[in-house]
């Protein structure tokens, strides 16, 4: 996010203001699925995810005042990743000490995956998952815009189905396949750009 673009407050900036409840709600709405994805990647069992999500959001809410947004390119999601990581780390540690000796082996295997994840790796996961998450979110929005064969043509082409095959499958011309595909692509890129500006 460049300095110029910060003239308009982003969602994160608005949410940092602890009185702006709607901004916070929106932030939670967007990020909670994302954090869910990340902590699932860290092998947290589904049943425990809600608890952890709440803890993470509480930490964020409390820590917003200390977070220096946009400075030194520090990204909200990097911070978010660090917070999530520490919460998950605590979770596994707690779980380990609480569990009985006989389940030790099972716990070992459960946490071993996590403990082996290093800090740079976390950052990588956070970054990558965010990109995937935002792209998919954008795709969901784009799907609502297009009707007819456009999305289908696009999705088939993403699966690397040859254009001729798509054309015959959808009963349209090859040119139409390319055109529909490109239209969806263009719109998707626009949507991603918008989501990025809004949520990062």
């Amino acid at each position, binding site marked *: 996010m460049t300095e110029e673009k910060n003239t308009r407050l982003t969602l994160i900036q608005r949410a940092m203001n602890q009185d702006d409840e709607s901004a916070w709600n929106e932030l939670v709405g967007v990020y909670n699925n994302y954090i869910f994805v990340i902590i699932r990647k860290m092998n947290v069992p589904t049943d425990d995810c*809600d608890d952890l999500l709440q803890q993470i959001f*509480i930490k964020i809410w409390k820590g917003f005042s200390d977070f220096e947004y946009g400075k030194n390119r520090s990204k909200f999601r990097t911070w978010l990743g660090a917070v999530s990581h520490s919460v998950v780390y605590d979770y596994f540690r707690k779980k380990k000490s609480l569990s009985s000796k006989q389940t030790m082996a099972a716990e070992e295997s459960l946490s071993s995956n996590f403990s082996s994840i290093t800090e740079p790796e976390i950052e990588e996961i956070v970054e990558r998952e965010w990109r*995937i998450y935002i*792209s998919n979110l954008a795709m969901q929005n784009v799907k609502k815009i297009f009707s007819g064969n456009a999305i289908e043509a696009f999705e088939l082409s993403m699966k690397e189905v040859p254009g001729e095959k798509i054309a015959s499958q959808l009963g349209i011309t090859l040119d139409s396949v390319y055109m529909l595909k*490109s239209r969806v692509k263009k719109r998707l890129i626009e949507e991603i750009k918008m989501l990025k500006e809004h949520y990062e």
Partner: protein
Amino acid sequence: MAFFNSFSENLPYCIFMADTNSKIEREKLVDELNPQLEIFYDLDKENLEDSALYPIQSKILENPDIKELCEIARGGEKFIIKAYDSKADRHIAVARPIDTSQEGNERFLREARITASLEHPNISSVYDISADSDNQAYFTTELLEDKSLQDLVKDFHSGETDYKLEDLLDVLVKVCDAVAYAHSRNVIHLDIKPENIQVGTYGNVLLIDWGLAKILTEKDDIYLNESDLDADTLNTMTLNGTLKGTPGFMAPEQAGFNMKKNKQTDVYALGAVLYYILTGKAHIQGDTLMEVLRNTCLSKVTPIHKATDKELPSSLTAVCEKALSFMQEDRYPDSVSFKAEIQAYLRGFATKAEEAGFSKQLALLYRRKPLICQVIVTAMIVIISGTFIFVRTLSQSEAKAVLEKQNAEKNLELFKVEKRKRDLIESKVDEALNVFVKNLNDDKLVEDKFASLFVGASISNSRALDFENAMLLCDSVLKKYPNNSKALSEKAYLYLIDHKFVAAREAFWACATEAPHVFELGRMSMRYSKLKPDDSVRMDLDTTMRFINELPTGRDWLAMYLLVREKQLSDSISDYSKWVKEFLFLLNKNMKRNELNFSFEQTNAGNKLSLAGSKNLTNLMQLSGYKFPLKSILETLELSFLNLSHTEVKNLVHLREMKLKEINLYDCAVTNMAQLQTLNKEKLRLIIIKKGQIPILDKNVFKGVELRELD
């Protein structure tokens, strides 16, 4: 949870999320995230390839070339390649010369230019004439359908097609249009043959291969126009010393007989195509090429009835014979008059053939169920002839009523009679049809045949100049079958005859696809319906004459119908005589307006017409074909006295139906007895001639007629 609760009072409510449903959805979301989409995260839409977004533009800009796919045909001078034109996104044909020498290229380009200069729906259009980077000439045209008339005729004669003879003749009519157009541009084709006539799936017809075409150079033939073809440049280039034309279709003058090639050369080929359509064979046979050529020069045409077992309509075989005459002057003067004959046939054919089919139908039925058949036929005869006789009697009383038109009561009576007549016919038609359908219900075509029978009767009525009856019969058919194209086109003609252009337009329009030969008239009706939108008003004389002058060639009978109709509807015969006067100019094209002396008079002794002293007045016949019920336009004036003195009339045979009392032929062009003998002697009392006008005069031939010779 305790940990969480301790902070809850400060937290916005919404982070306490995720009921069961959204949990499931969330799980699903994680599973369904498509990692592939990540690639779009950093993409900028400006980097998107426009080619996909704007495929047409990019194709035109990127790939201006024509992609040649495969050779599809090869002729004497050129071969044709199927190609894809990426600019227009269509398949086209690319023609390239076989002889790639400079001379060959030039000859090839000549054909391209001639074809390109002819813009007509039945002549393939040239898109582009160009040369490759290595100077190889080519031209591009529309890609032709793969059926030629030759294929269609073969299919037709082997019975492997739905095509009917009429359909093939329709194709020929369109070819005539193309030829007529080319002739008007001084181009003769010289290689008209079924192979060179392409027929598309949707009835589009193209005359192709103008490789032998010639540009006529006769001075008086050249219609000076800046877009006229440059005859000198283009003519010197036909390949010398080679046979130009296709044996079996070429005219004697093309096979070596020393005669100039002209428009009649194409007419000959059209006749050959007609022969081929009718018989499925070429009209000249021979085992070797030389023999065919020799037979062509000797005009050894295989008699058409020997060429096929099929029963051929005699009118068409006559057309064939005339077109295939050895001497050019014996052929049709142009493709237009040839076409008119085919069209005349097409117009009449529908009914004649269908009537034949109908009687065949009856014959078959008779074999199966003789008793029922007898009942039907009797019923049919009673119903139809009964109706006709009744209507005919009505017509006569109607005529009387017209004479007493001023009488309002009579008018009312007439109206009632008219209505009764209409109701009667309609009910009789229904009755007859029901009888038929009930008894012939195993044949789906019966209704169609029935309709045709009535349209046929309607056309016969028109021919007998009873337009009211004709209209009634058409209406009866249309009431049952509103889309019957034959009835619609007949009705349209009847509307035209009544100057009802709005109604005519609608009717022509409704049948235009089924009966393409009415298309031109449909357009005329359209034009005149704008000019005169009120169908209840009739055109004045001037407008009518303009209309007649604009009629397509070969529709002179329509002009005659218009004249006869005017007579039928006119209150005053002296008013009507002005129409006859105008028609005399149509008949005598060389006569100037001030040269005609026309004086018509109604007297107690009978109607008098004097044309005395009219210079250049030669022709007194009528405009239509010989089958027209009237022989002379003067017949409609119901003359008793006719003065033709000092005119150039020399043929009296057309006057043979006129019951004249006196005729003055003083110093006209009649110079022999035979002419006088053709006159109708029923009421004839006096013939006046100049002394010595008829050198060998036999006064005894005319009993009771005074032959007065004046000085």
